[in-house]
């Protein structure tokens, strides 16, 4: 009995530890390919399908910015986009590109975007 408890606790601890290690892997930071500047406007491209990519974007603060979220046969949660700070919510078309303008005054700090159920997310770090 005690042995069984011990084995059970060990396996459980291992699984919990494993899950955290698994879910907590650092996200790939991408700022070069996702951010471009056209006519003084900062463009950020994020693709949405089975999550958002890139997950972390480094961008310039205080610049009028357009966030372009593109979907391609996206039927999962990432098609229902929510940006709490901008009070933005939209169900994106399965295939298409959505442009969201972020004013210069809003382009500061960290902007979190996530899907309607919260499983997928991305962040834009304005610095």
């Amino acid at each position, binding site marked *: *009995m005690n042995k*069984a*408890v011990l084995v*059970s606790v060990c*396996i*459980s601890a291992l*699984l*919990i530890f*494993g*899950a955290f290690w*698994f*879910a907590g892997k650092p*996200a790939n930071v991408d700022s070069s390919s996702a951010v471009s500047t056209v006519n003084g406007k900062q463009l950020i491209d994020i693709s949405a*399908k*089975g*999550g958002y990519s890139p*997950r972390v974007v480094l961008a310039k603060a205080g610049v009028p910015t357009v966030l372009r979220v593109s979907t*391609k*046969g*996206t*039927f*999962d*949660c*990432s*098609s*229902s986009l*929510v940006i*709490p*700070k901008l009070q933005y*919510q939209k*169900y994106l*078309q*399965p*295939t298409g590109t959505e442009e969201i303008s972020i004013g210069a005054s809003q382009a500061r700090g960290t902007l*979190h975007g*996530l*899907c*309607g*159920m*919260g*499983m*997928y*997310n991305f962040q834009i770090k304005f610095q």
Partner: protein
Amino acid sequence: MSSTDADVGLIGPKSDPKIYTFHVHGMHCSACPLLIEETFKELPNIASARASLANHQVIVTGEFAGSPEKIAEELTKLVKSHGYTISLERMKKDAGWKDFVYALPIALVVIVGFLALQKAGLTNLITSSNVSYGTAFVIGLIASVSTCLAIVGGLVLSLSASSAKEGGTWRTQTLFHLGRLGGFFVLGGIIGVIGNSLHLGLTANIVLGIIVALVMLILGINLLDVFHFAKRLQLTMPKWLSKHVVRGAKHDHFLAPVLVGIGTFFLPCGFTQSMQLYALTTGSFLEGALTMTAFALGTLPVLALLSFGSLNIAHKPWKGIFFKTAGIIVIALALFNLANAFATAGIINPLFNF
């Protein structure tokens, strides 16, 4: 109580009404005490009966012959079919804490498996962007093992395990699934015709997400069957849910499981919502209806496995382990959904990344 036979305990000769306190094993719901009271009061020799969910006791006043053990046995016969046992002693939880030895690792394996599935990038299997009924079916299949599982599957598991635990039958589960399929057909058709989504707004979505998470949390804690405070919590749950869905299982409540099935159309599940978005572009009742039905059919295998599986296991000797495993999984999913709802509301930063 007459004093003449006080020394011989409860064995009285006849006539004088006596008060007995018995323990009730198997009381789970807010409607249980009422049912027990009503059943006992029908006996001619019982003057009054008061059952309490909080301490799992029933106090009966009446005229009895025979030993208290005998009385408990007689009373048990009356309510046995509802799953209650009347006894003198508080019945020990025969399948109690030691079930966790198995339940905890099993539950964790399932949870880690769920996380791994999310990382596996199943959604990339969907390559076409125009939706045939076949695609809708495949999307349903994928949805049923993806993030939707956390909310729809979690709810189905918690409701069906609770229902099975309370003695519910296959009928409840079947009605739920028929309600879901029928609801998706009709509502899918409606959004196809009116070309307008029945999406809930962001706030409604968050509120709904939180409510579903809380219901799952309470049902999950009840499935664990170790904390008595949760039984009292259930009283605060909407009456229609505690009474009709969880318990009404056995009797003539056809409507509740059907309504819950239809209601899953509105649950915050990304897949469901994007399918709805597609259905409304079809502009026809039949196309919208069939698309949504194909999607719902795709989700059916996994959901049916969850609900009929719970029902089947509820009669196996290791059901104690199953209910505790289900309880842990449901609680974990409830907390997951709760954290996600708060993150969506912008209250906390997202905790999970897939």
